[in-house]
């Protein structure tokens, strides 16, 4: 069985894209969340190996979610996924514990490279 992944993105289109790409690469998608609150609940409940975390969600921003993960000592590696490539946002995510960062739009190969590097 592949590493367990939780996909967090408000866009059903992006969630499907990420799920299909990672499933094909051998990862097991164990959950998906369209908002921050569900992401936190599922992360604590499912204990994934990896979380792909969209930075802008309807109810929270990714860096705030990272703070919750940190306070809960979550062991999952987090890859931030965002359309914003601003260096200060990337740095803040990394400082809060994100393992890596990928900027949209990306190819399937780009995503697999990042995920493999983090948990492969």
């Amino acid at each position: 069985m592949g590493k367990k992944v939780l996909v967090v993105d408000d866009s059903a289109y992006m969630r499907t894209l990420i799920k299909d790409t990672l499933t094909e690469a051998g990862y097991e998608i164990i959950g998906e969340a369209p908002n921050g609150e569900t992401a936190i609940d599922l992360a604590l409940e499912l204990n994934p190996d990896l979380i792909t975390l969209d930075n802008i969600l309807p109810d929270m921003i990714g860096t705030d979610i990272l703070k919750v993960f940190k306070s809960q000592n979550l062991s999952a590696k987090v890859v931030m996924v965002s359309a914003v490539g601003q260096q200060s946002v990337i740095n803040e995510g990394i400082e809060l514990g994100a393992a890596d960062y990928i900027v949209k739009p990306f190819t399937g190969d780009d995503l697999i490279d990042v995920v493999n590097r983090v948990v492969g």
Partner: protein
Amino acid sequence: MGNLMIEKFTEQEMAVAVEMINRGLDRAAVSLKMILNSAIEVTNVDFEIAVLNDEPQYSSKKDDKIHILRTELAGELRGICHLIFTSDEVEKIYSKCLPESVISSDNSDAQIMRLELLKEIDNIMAASVITEFANSLEVGIYGNVPSLHVMEAKEVNKYIHAESVTLSPLIQFSSVFHTDDIDIKSDFIWLLEEEFIQKIKNLALK
């Protein structure tokens, strides 16, 4: 280019602003090229600073179902961007990016997927420009979750103008993203609050 702009910006500041906006639009073009897998040409770039008393012509598209994707800037500065497609252009995007099973289905999952594709395109294009602004002006800004509004062409200018007055006086710029192979000419219209002017002046001093 209105008279107010000459009062607000020196020639050098104007050059800095135009260069920054062009870099942002180029980033957005690269993003759209990647999503649609089509060559993109940015044309008709128009930029001005204005107090908008009259209702300008923001979009000249003709259709009874204009799709406006709206993203509001959040963070240190305020602004709104609009990415505009006709229904015909939307169908072409679906054909390019989605499987036939999703395009032709009326079930709710397929409808959501089509909507989310458009919102994602807007999200990525807006973020491309916002990233350029954020890096150049050294401000913390990002695009909120986008929304889709469908209306008749005759309502579009009134809709955008109503938003512009909340930011007036403002910086306004627009452009057309043209793809040859699927013949899409999307309007990309930005309204930015006056505070951007001071930030651009600061950038020009560096």
